């Protein structure tokens, strides 16, 4: 695959007539990070897209092999930095499952609330960034107004705004801040008032609709065969919400809908995410007044050791299904660890659905896939 796009020394023969190879990225305003797309164009029409990865590869999986089961969780915050709580939860759940650690109810509920807040924050950032890809600057600021409240809540709770590292095997690192409930309620109220502004500014906009409807259509079969998960697959009509299929923490006791759209185009992906934010609010509303009293962390041994064997845990991040797979030899560190990240599979579909469309469509498609590059590269 890489042979096809070597650095061309001889510029006399540049391939078929009318073809133009453009390097989008690693430094490009629309790739949101260091994604490198080698795009073959015929005029404005895209003939082929080749994603080149590796610009932000930090060998997180290898690093985790030399870290203990308490330590490796902190590295995972740096994978998909927009849903670091959820990454941490996945790892904590896996260690808890492997060692049969009892997690207190309080910790479970708080984890669920934080996970949903993270999901909203991630979708907020996505709305802003995607609108910017389509050339509208203003929604970014409106989205960040609400996102800021979430990051403030996170700062109160964990002391960090992006890489939280708050969830540990057995529960939480600290108890929640005394103001946690009031702040979350204030956020819910503001969100409900202001979310209509996005609808006015973005959803109903005729230019936005014409830019996204029928663009980057992903069929149900393709979504399954490419391994797409999360909002991308749900917009194509695939039921794949891990919170429904394999509930963890407090998801089995809350009511919420799995949003399914069938169109599979960029607009459907947009609608799925906007509706998902409302479902997240619904989950938080059910839990925020019912945080049980008690311990915030269960009893664990000082040194964690997983039994010999293989362990797998999957959770639903803001981007889709995150799987953590650990092979243990019974030591204090994992023998082998593998993350199944949602972004990688979702990126792989890009060439398939954007081929034959215009450059502008590529931005709409790529924007609605919601790629976070450190999640893809790890």
């Amino acid at each position, binding site marked *: 695959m890489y042979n096809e796009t070597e650095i061309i020394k001889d510029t006399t023969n540049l391939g078929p007539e009318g073809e133009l190879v453009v390097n989008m990225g690693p430094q490009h305003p629309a790739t949101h990070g260091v994604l490198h797309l080698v795009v073959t164009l015929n005029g404005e029409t895209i003939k082929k897209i080749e994603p080149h990865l590796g610009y932000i590869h930090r060998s997180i999986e290898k690093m985790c092999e030399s870290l203990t089961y308490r330590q490796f969780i902190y590295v995972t915050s740096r994978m998909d930095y927009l849903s670091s709580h959820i990454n941490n939860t996945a790892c904590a759940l896996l260690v808890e499952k492997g060692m049969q650690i009892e997690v207190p109810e309080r910790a479970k509920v708080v984890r669920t609330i934080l996970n949903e807040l993270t999901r909203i924050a991630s979708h907020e950032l996505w709305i802003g960034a995607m609108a910017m890809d389509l050339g509208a600057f203003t929604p970014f600021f409106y989205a960040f107004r609400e996102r800021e409240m979430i990051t403030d809540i996170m700062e109160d709770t964990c002391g960090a705004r992006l890489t939280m590292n708050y969830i540990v095997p057995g529960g939480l690192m600290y108890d929640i801040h005394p103001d946690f409930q009031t702040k979350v309620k204030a956020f819910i109220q503001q969100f409900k008032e202001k979310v209509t502004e996005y609808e006015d*500014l973005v959803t109903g906009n005729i230019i936005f609709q014409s830019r996204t409807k029928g663009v980057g259509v992903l069929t149900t079969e393709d979504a399954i065969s490419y391994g797409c998960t999360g909002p991308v697959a749900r917009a194509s009509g695939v039921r794949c919400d891990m919170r429904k299929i394999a509930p963890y923490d407090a998801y089995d006791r809350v009511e919420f809908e799995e949003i399914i759209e069938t169109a599979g185009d960029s607009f459907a992906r947009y609608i799925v995410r906007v509706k998902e934010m409302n479902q997240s609010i619904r989950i938080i509303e059910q839990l925020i007044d019912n945080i049980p009293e008690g311990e915030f962390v269960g009893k664990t041994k000082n040194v964690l050791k997983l039994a010999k064997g293989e362990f797998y845990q999957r959770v639903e991040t803001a981007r889709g299904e995150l799987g953590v797979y650990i092979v243990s030899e019974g030591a204090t560190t994992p023998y082998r660890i593998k993350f199944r990240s949602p972004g990688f599979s979702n990126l792989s579909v890009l060439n398939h659905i954007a081929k034959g469309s215009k450059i*502008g469509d590529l931005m709409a498609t790529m924007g609605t896939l919601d790629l976070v590059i450190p999640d893809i590269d790890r």
Partner: protein
Amino acid sequence: MLSLESITKTTQDWLLAKFDPTIALAIECVIVIVLCITLFAILGLVLVLLERKVAARIQIRLGPNRVGPGGIFQTAADTLKLIMKEGLTPDSADKFLFNLAPFVVMMVAMLLLAPIAFARNFQIWDINIGVLYISSISSLSVIGILMAGWASNNKYSLLGAMRSGAQIVSYELSAGFAVLTIVVLTGSLQISDIVAAQENGWWLFKGHIPVIIAFVLYIIAVTAETNRAPFDLAEAESELTAGFHTEYSGMKFALFFLAEYINIFIVCAIGATLFLGGWMPLHIGHWESFNHIMDYIPSSIWFMGKTFFLIFVIMWFRWTFPRLRVDQLLNLEWKYLLPISLFNLLLVTVIAIMGWHF
């Protein structure tokens, strides 16, 4: 009252009394050039600051507020920075065309300033084919953009320039037809005649619905012609990084930037002249006292007020709408705007012949 008209008249009388007519004309030319360049510089500073403040207002933030009171010196500081920066010329660029392009774009903007009536009897050149002159000169700016895109030897620049070419050539038609409706109603191409025809009411109010349609078409078409969002495909920073001026830096970039804002000013000034009566105060039928009060406001303030209102509308577009796709952009022009403007022109012609307008 000290008006711009009396200043120009006194200056000319004094010059003619002191020198013979040829030298007086030469001196007047120099004065006009200096004034034009000063106007450009001031407009650039004001419009960039205005845009940033409008954007900030729409985007629930404050905008520049550090340099000077309320940030009014921010653009001056930015300009200083741009002047001090190195103007890079890429190695593989066509050096001559690359360095020429910003000046072509700038010169076109300057030429367009000539027939604009800023106030009562305050006009550089009241040419008898004023509207035709404006339409023909404004289409020249595409040459500068194509030149920049081609000479940069950059794929993004080339794509941006090609988009810009297709876009300006198409939207020129709609803008032209919208302008023609007013020419049909006035029966003259001269700017001063067009303004004089609106003494008892602006064309927007006098000309029934067809003129309102023409006005809307004009605003859409000139937004596209000046490469402003939602039609900023030539720059499209999320797709083409910065489009045709990707490779430009320092003052050469600043010239493109300045030309963009001057072009906005000019198209809005023309829009104000054609549809909103130029420097004519707002007159309503037989409300004599109201009309008298309106006459007390200087004509230059009327002109600037209308122009800046239109500029605000165009800025408002930019910060509200997403960008169109290139094929949608051309569809909009060739499938919708052009047929509408052709039919609209026919309607206006019927109105003008039958004398149905007020």
